[in-house]
């Protein structure tokens, strides 16, 4: 897990997961788009999303924001990029998304990403490993906050000297 590129990918997963959970958990009153009467480009978008997630119904967060097709397409492009296999495997990214969803008390996100972890081959042991890490570090962080501890472990990992993608070396 050394190298900043891994951490940029993780941050993308954290950010977009939170964004999708906000929609799924908070936009119920808006109601999902009616696919039968949706414009062709929105139906094609939802088909693409369904395919990425192995069929079934497109996740609620996308059906809720698909009332604005162009906006939903941009969000989906970012989400697909964030969750796709890259330096971090999609299976692990779903574990990160599950941890984020549990930590932020997003029941819909936790349920969705738990199902995705299992679909991508994570067993019960692996699920409980992520539950354990999430729970224990939810404890450590609150202990640290309560006692207002100063960060003192920031120097145990070396800085990554590589430039931004495509940029010149320093």
């Amino acid at each position, binding site marked *: 897990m050394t190298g900043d590129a891994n951490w940029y990918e993780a941050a993308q997963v954290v950010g977009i997961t939170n964004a999708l959970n906000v929609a799924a958990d908070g936009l119920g009153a808006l109601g999902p788009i009616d696919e039968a009467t949706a414009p062709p480009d929105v139906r094609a978008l939802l088909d693409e999303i369904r395919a990425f997630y192995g069929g079934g119904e497109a996740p609620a967060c996308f059906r809720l924001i698909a009332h604005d097709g162009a906006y939903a397409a941009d969000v989906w492009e970012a989400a697909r990029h964030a969750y796709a296999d890259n330096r971090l495997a999609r299976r692990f990214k779903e574990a990160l998304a599950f941890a*984020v969803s549990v930590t932020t008390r997003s029941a819909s996100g936790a349920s969705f990403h738990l199902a995705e972890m299992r679909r991508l081959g994570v067993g019960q042991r692996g699920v409980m490993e992520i539950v354990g890490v999430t729970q224990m570090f939810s404890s450590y962080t609150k202990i640290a*906050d309560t006692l207002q501890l100063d960060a003192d*472990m920031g120097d145990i990992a070396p800085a990554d000297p590589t430039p931004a993608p495509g940029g010149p070396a320093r």
Partner: protein
Amino acid sequence: MPTVRLRHADEYPAAAQKLFELSRAWFNHDFAEPPAMSRVMAWDPGFGGPHGRAMKRAMGPGEFSRGEKEMVAAVVSGVNACEY
């Protein structure tokens, strides 16, 4: 500034010194002073002991690697807005 006065390692009993050694081995880093969280957890072994064991069980390699789990831990800490 911490709510409590964090004791230096040499203010702890011998049993805690062993925990500090384990902490050094766990992080594979030669700290000048054990991390603040290690010293907090060593304050009350009745809590810190089982809490630390649960953490090590969760963080050990399994379906996910130790490195992957460290990233999950960092993400959970970040989402909790914890700077420590």
